[in-house]
């Protein structure tokens, strides 16, 4: 009997190798069909109308003029008279028609009667928010020794001690709201077959979305099939059915024709999710070695109308000094509601606090590396030693010691100064629940079937590799089917849970299938099934490989029917876990800053990352490259710009919403950290962790270059010049 444990490190034949992703050619040649690409016959195109005002009451929405436009087939209001609209871009109506032009004209023809209401959008300005009555307390958390009676007095005493023996800094940091900017916007192509609905849906949650369509449409969840073979970006914003897709399904029903509704870019950015902002005022005291003794902070920010800011739990981030007070204020704004954004809370927490740790180093005139190292004993997880080890590796790859200069003390060449910065991060990444079916056919064919999805991590490839490892076959011998709600349920892809989840279920299912096959082969080879193993495309006797049959011959013993085995993994219930949680990583940035123009360039970026057992080294490296580049994006380029006077989102188009381009990325060096202790933990999710630290690492590098802090991300030329007093 084969057992499900992973092979020991160094003995696997497929795990840890780097095959190309299974769907690489299909994606690169345009053959892969995304939701946007599904074009059923007689399909109507639909678009929605976003609200032009930041806050208003609907008096009426008249779609009749739209219906008179040639080519428009259907139109519906999506708000009722009396409804309050809380942000610019919230959806007022939907129009379906024969062509893009007809639909655009139809949307323009809709008559709106809206009563403007008072609005507020400035999330950075706490004072203005208080004045506008848009704030509320969102948490207060204090840690002191038990015997402290007067908290203020105690903190005051600690700060005095630090002032005397070490250093105290007072500073402000921040990170603006950014959007998900999925290149494929949210949306669906809806097709009814009688009373059954097929929704091609751009989703991170193939197995969990059908009920959200069924309930508002008044059909049984079993009559809804959700399909997503490929998704053009999600990053945490695509778990739901969403009202606009439900409306598209409704129009498909009423018109008797398939309807495709994808959000236009502006509506996508205004209404389909964003990452909350975070701004902080902090006082930190440390001893003369830079070890933080006391932290006292107040942070605020917004996630839209509800207000919920970044959690207090990530302040300060990873480091956790013995005495701390953290106060949080929520600001309610008339802006689109936030959705989970890759590693919720962590990038902002890191950018708002590990910058302060770097400023401790600056104030003391000591190497930032040493300050980070000396504070490792306080980390919130059990990874102090891992971080120390990773820091050593990262410093070597960066050549940190040779390049280091104290903050602002580096040489200047033609107005350009260089600097180094670092940051560390942590994430959970435990496997999600997952089920799969493995089929082994009498002709030797192997199939894995799961209701999972591929966000770009390479889910198909990971599944194929686990099956191939288990059955002793090459990766291309495995056919993988994912992307349908009619397949065995797998969890939503969020929080770095997918690779762990599908590996767990697939390894179990494939092992069960193999054991069924071994039982068939055993009599033929005259041994017990537990003396057999699958290796190199053969079923062989352990220790006597000459006694064997080929995979194909083994499968021919099955007769008429294929083997079908199930693999199930339930968090916390399944034994012999093949996965674990808890990731750590260290990142270092080297930048060049032009003091005249304020332009920051990334010269080199180093990322050292653990992820337990690595399934595919090439895909893992891609994930980290991508995370670093996404981190460079929010560190240097992207932000949502709101106009305080009109309440409008000013840069809700790709030409105005600045993102890095190919030439903006310097050298990126990735180290996959996988000592035996890591490998033996099994699979740990990788999607979120490496996107967390770039903001702080790059901010720290810029501060090291300039000798002054540019407090708010992104570090645009204007902000850099302002920090230099040249604004």
């Amino acid at each position, binding site marked *: 009997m084969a057992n499900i444990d992973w092979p020991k490190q160094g003995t696997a034949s497929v795990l840890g190798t780097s095959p190309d992703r299974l769907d690489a*050619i299909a994606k690169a040649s345009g053959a892969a069909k995304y939701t946007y690409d599904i074009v059923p016959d007689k399909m109507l195109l639909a678009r929605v109308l976003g609200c032009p005002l930041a806050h208003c009451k609907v008096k009426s929405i008249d779609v009749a003029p739209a219906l008179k436009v040639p080519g428009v087939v259907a139109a519906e209001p999506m708000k009722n008279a009396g409804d309050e609209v809380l942000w610019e871009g919230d959806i007022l109506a939907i129009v379906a028609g024969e062509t893009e032009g007809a639909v655009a004209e139809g949307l323009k023809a809709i008559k709106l009667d809206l009563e403007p209401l008072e609005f507020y959008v400035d999330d950075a300005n706490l004072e203005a928010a208080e004045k506008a009555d848009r704030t509320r307390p969102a948490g207060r958390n204090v840690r002191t020794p038990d015997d402290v009676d007067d908290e203020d007095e105690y903190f005051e005493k600690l700060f005095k001690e630090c002032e005397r023996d070490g250093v105290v800094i007072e500073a402000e940091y921040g990170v603006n709201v950014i959007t998900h900017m999925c*290149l494929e916007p949210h949306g669906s192509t809806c097709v009814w077959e009688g009373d059954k609905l097929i929704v091609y849906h751009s989703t991170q949650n193939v197995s969990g979305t059908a009920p959200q369509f069924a309930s508002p449409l008044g059909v049984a969840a079993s009559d809804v099939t959700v399909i997503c073979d490929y998704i053009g970006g999600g990053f945490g914003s695509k778990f739901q059915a969403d009202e606009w897709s439900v409306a598209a399904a409704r129009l498909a029903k009423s018109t008797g024709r398939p309807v495709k509704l994808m959000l236009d*870019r502006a509506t996508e950015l205004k209404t389909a999710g964003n990452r909350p902002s975070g701004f902080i005022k902090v006082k930190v005291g440390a001893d003369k070695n830079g070890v933080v003794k006391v932290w006292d902070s107040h942070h605020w920010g917004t996630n839209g109308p509800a207000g919920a800011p970044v959690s207090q739990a990530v302040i300060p981030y990873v480091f956790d000094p013995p005495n701390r007070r953290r106060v949080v204020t929520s600001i309610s704004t008339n802006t689109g509601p936030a959705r989970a954004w890759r590693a919720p809370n962590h990038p902002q927490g890191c950018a708002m606090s590990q910058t302060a740790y770097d400023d401790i180093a600056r104030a003391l005139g000591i190497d930032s590396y040493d300050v980070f190292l000396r504070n490792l004993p306080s980390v919130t997880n059990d990874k102090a030693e891992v971080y120390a080890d990773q820091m050593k590796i990262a410093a070597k790859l960066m050549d940190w010691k040779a390049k280091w200069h104290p903050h602002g003390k580096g040489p200047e060449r033609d107005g350009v100064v260089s600097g180094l910065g670092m940051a560390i991060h942590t994430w959970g990444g435990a496997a999600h629940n997952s089920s799969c079916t493995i089929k082994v056919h009498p002709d030797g064919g192997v199939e894995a079937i799961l209701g999972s999805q591929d966000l770009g991590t390479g889910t198909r490839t990971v599944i194929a590799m686990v099956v191939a490892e288990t059955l002793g076959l090459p990766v291309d011998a495995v056919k993988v089917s994912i992307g349908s709600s009619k397949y065995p349920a797998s969890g939503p892809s969020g929080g770095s849970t997918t690779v762990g989840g599908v590996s767990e279920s697939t390894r179990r299912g494939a092992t069960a299938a193999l054991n069924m096959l071994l039982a068939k082969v055993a009599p033929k080879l005259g041994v017990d099934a537990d003396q057999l193993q699958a290796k190199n495309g053969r079923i062989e006797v352990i220790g006597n490989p000459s006694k064997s049959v080929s995979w194909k011959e083994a499968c021919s013993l099955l007769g008429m029917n294929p083997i079908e085995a199930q693999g199930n993994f339930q968090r916390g219930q399944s034994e012999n876990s093949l996965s674990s949680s808890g990731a750590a990583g260290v990142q270092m940035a080297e930048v060049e800053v032009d003091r005249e123009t304020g332009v920051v360039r990334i010269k080199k970026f180093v990322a050292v990352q653990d992820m337990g057992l690595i399934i595919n080294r090439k895909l893992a490296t*891609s994930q980290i490259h991508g995370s670093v580049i996404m981190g460079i994006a929010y560190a240097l380029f992207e932000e949502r710009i709101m106009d305080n006077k009109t309440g409008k989102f000013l840069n809700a188009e790709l030409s105005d919403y600045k993102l890095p381009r190919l030439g903006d990325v310097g050298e990126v060096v990735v180290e996959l950290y996988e000592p035996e202790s890591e490998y033996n933990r099994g699979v740990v999710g990788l999607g979120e962790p490496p996107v967390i630290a770039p903001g702080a690492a790059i901010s720290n590098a810029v501060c090291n270059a300039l000798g002054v802090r540019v407090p708010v991300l992104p570090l645009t030329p204007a902000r850099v010049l302002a920090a230099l007093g040249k604004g």
Partner: protein
Amino acid sequence: MKDHDQGRGRSGFSRREFLKGSSAAAAATALSVGPAVARAEEKGTKLVGPGATSLTLNVNGKDHQVQVEPRMTLLEVLRYQLKLTGAKPVATDGSCGAATVIVDGKPISAATTLALDCKGKKIQTVESLGGPEPDQVVKAFAKADAQQCGFCTPGFVVAVRAFLDKHPNATKEEIRQGLNGNLCRCGTYYDVIEAALECVKGGS
């Protein structure tokens, strides 16, 4: 590297005349017959639109009959009439490169090119680089894993193909400078550079 030619069609179609006397932006959606049309008629030019007209487009070496309104973009026609969905709608203003196709040897954005302006031109989409024997650039993207979600990838592949056709011996720095018209959100740039370099080394 982008050489946007849209709006300067040399197809001989009367649309240019139709636009005379009114701003292009207004005319692109105008349906009413106004003074511009009257002037065009005086010159004896054949009028097209506002309804659909039949047009032959040469795409990937084959002629296709399509029904085109003057306001239709090449992207809309490729995707919804010819079901060639490799070029993607991401930005409507061509600022992302996801809808890059090659027209008469030049990379352009199908999202900002009117279909009518492509009459008589040779249109090449990413699909022509696939098939059983994929183009070297497609294979290099697979090998370098220069894709994650993959939505920007076809546009990048076409842009890299067009760039290397023009600069077969491009250096890494030239590649970094020359491919800034395409946008990726997943962050595949580093690997796209590797893929392009691979093609240079491979003697593209």
